[in-house]
């Protein structure tokens, strides 16, 4: 018995030509067996290979595939949000077609059926050759640990892009102005009770995975600062402490000068330490404020976060089931068509 729930699967693609057809057929077979209405939303992140023309070709064969082509590359997380914004399902499943296993989709939906509105897939990386590299993973874990400490958000470290979100969660999330940067730390914002599903990543890419450390660092900083005001407050608190200490030190200097002026030369070291400490504090403050100012600037500019240049839908000429020959339909004879 097929379910009435409308499922949307959101999958960003970039240069996915080698594995996309197999992925689409797998997901489509899975969904069509269980659901009356569903859609697969693909967001093309400026693929330079034949991904787009492959999808357009498959849209004549596979039902309910929706493709959006972006004008500019906006990164994996941004592409997820674009897909979520355009999905129309009662529930939305996000997955990376290069790494996430379609066969676990039924498990996500089963958890949803038990009343969970958000389900996060937790990856169990086998690490090493097949994945992004042990060093990167280690850094990622360290970052998320730092993130948790600073923002005090309860978030599992093994978070991945394989998730299920209910319509209510989606509607709330897309109201957020910073949503294009916040997809990876979404649990920090909804506050809703979530469930988790542990799964193993596959690797369809079958090639080396280039790790962009600088890019990741940029995203890490943006995440940290967009997520909460606590870093700024910490800095403010720190500078206040520094200011107080400097004041105390100034008092100390005056006292010493009044009572121990013959030992002044020995004060040189501590004074240098104090000056450099203050400078350090000032630079940190400037950096943080600069980052916040950039965000304010971007917001007031009202720049379009993305532009969709092309959209296409599946159009499959599908035939009715053949009626049993012994039934008398009383209708006009059907013409046999060459396919």
């Amino acid at each position, binding site marked *: 018995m097929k379910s009435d729930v*409308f499922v949307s699967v959101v999958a960003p693609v970039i240069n996915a030509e080698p594995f996309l057809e197999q992925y689409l057929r797998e997901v489509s077979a899975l969904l069509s067996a269980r659901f009356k209405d569903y859609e697969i939303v693909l967001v093309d992140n400026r693929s330079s290979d034949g991904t787009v023309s492959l999808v357009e070709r498959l849209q004549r064969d596979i039902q309910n595939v929706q493709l959006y082509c972006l004008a500019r590359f906006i990164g994996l997380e941004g592409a997820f949000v674009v897909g979520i914004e355009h999905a*129309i399902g009662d529930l939305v499943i996000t997955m990376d077609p290069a790494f996430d296993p379609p066969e676990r989709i039924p498990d996500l939906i089963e958890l949803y059926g038990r009343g969970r509105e958000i389900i996060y897939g937790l990856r169990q990386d086998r690490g090493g050759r097949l994945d992004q590299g042990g060093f990167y993973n280690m850094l990622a874990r360290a970052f998320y640990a730092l993130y948790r400490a600073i923002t005090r958000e309860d978030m599992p470290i093994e978070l991945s892009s394989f998730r299920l979100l209910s319509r209510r969660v989606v509607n709330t999330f897309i109201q957020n102005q910073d949503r294009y940067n916040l997809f990876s730390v979404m649990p920090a914002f909804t506050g809703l009770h979530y469930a988790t599903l542990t799964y193993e990543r596959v690797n369809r890419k079958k090639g080396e995975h280039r790790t962009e450390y600088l890019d990741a660092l940029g995203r890490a900083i943006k995440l940290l600062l967009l997520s909460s005001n606590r870093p700024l407050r910490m800095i403010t608190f720190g500078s206040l402490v520094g200011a107080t200490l400097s004041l105390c030190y100034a008092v100390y200097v005056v006292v010493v000068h009044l009572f121990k002026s013959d030992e002044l030369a020995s004060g040189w070291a501590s004074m240098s330490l104090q000056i450099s400490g203050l400078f350090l504090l000032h630079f940190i403050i400037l950096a943080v404020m600069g980052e916040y100012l950039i965000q304010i600037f971007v917001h007031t500019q009202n720049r379009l976060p993305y532009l969709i240049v092309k*959209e296409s839908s599946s*159009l499959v000429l599908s*035939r009715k089931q053949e009626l049993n020959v012994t039934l008398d339909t009383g209708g006009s004879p059907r013409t046999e*068509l*060459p396919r």
Partner: protein
Amino acid sequence: MKFATESIAVIGCGFYGASVAEHLARQGARVTVIEQDPEPLMRASYNNQARLHGGYHYPRSFSTAYRSRLNFPRFMEQFHPAIRSDFVNLYAIARINTKVTARQFETFCRNIEAPLRPARPAFAKMFAPHLIEAVYETEEFVFDAAILRRLMADRLQNMGVEMIFGRRVSSVETQNDSRLRVVCTDGSSLSANWVFNCTYAGLNTIGGISRTRQGLKQEVTEMALVELPPELQGLSVTVMDGPFFSFMPFPDRNLATLSHVRYTPHADWIEKIHGFRDPYATLDVTSRETRFGYMIRDAQRYLPALRGAVYRDSLFEIKTVLMRNESDDGRPILFEADPRNPHIVSMLGSKIDNIYDALAAIDLIVQSRPRA
């Protein structure tokens, strides 16, 4: 008039075929109309949203929009009993992915002199503000296709047009005396001086009539029929977006038609690329699973009140489009004389109020070819 001695066969009694037949009969010709269905105006003339275009729909094509406005009052006057105007017509402009902004839409309506005013707050606030930029009240009506059918049948009768129903034309042959013989699938035939092929989807299905030079694209389309929730009764809404949707009253069934540019087409084929196939037979064997679930889910993001709409039925039909209209809003009519015999004319129009352009074209072609 030159037509007194002409005998004319019109194939297809949709709105176009019937109008052409009446127009020619009015000029003195002896007209016979042949239709495969038991009644006139049963196919594309009935299975559509029945919007009487006020020009708003085509902001990217000034000429199409302006012609719509010119034809609007003429159609109103001629088919008054069939027109329904007792509802509020709203146009909502989307914020993103739209090919026209609110300001562009206002300028455009001013240029084509179409009445436009910002929607009253009670209506405007029904739309999701983060998706809709502006809402306007416009002046557009619908026609009741069943009443139109009766009107046309009466007029044809009054003009003395012979109407043959339940026969499908299979071919048109040129005889030795240059007259044309129209042959039906049941073997019957009739002869005439002129043949007008107004069969819409079946334009290229008649033997002896050359397939049109301009390619045709055939679409299997679905128009959902829904019962609107109380707060949307008496309203008609068109959302202008990349892929837009609209619902309008459908008087004959006391329901509303819901059409969505993305989900209304179920399948399509381009005759010149995918090969020629009989459109009626293809429609018959196509599975008719409604895409209402998709339409309503997308639409209710823009207008949450649509959540209360109840699905009742669907109208499935073949929609025939000329190939060159994909990238703009242009909707010209096709009017082609057969290169092998100029007395065979194939016509196709995609908007009902384009009929006046079609009739004008007939006058031109007929007056320029006198017959002894």
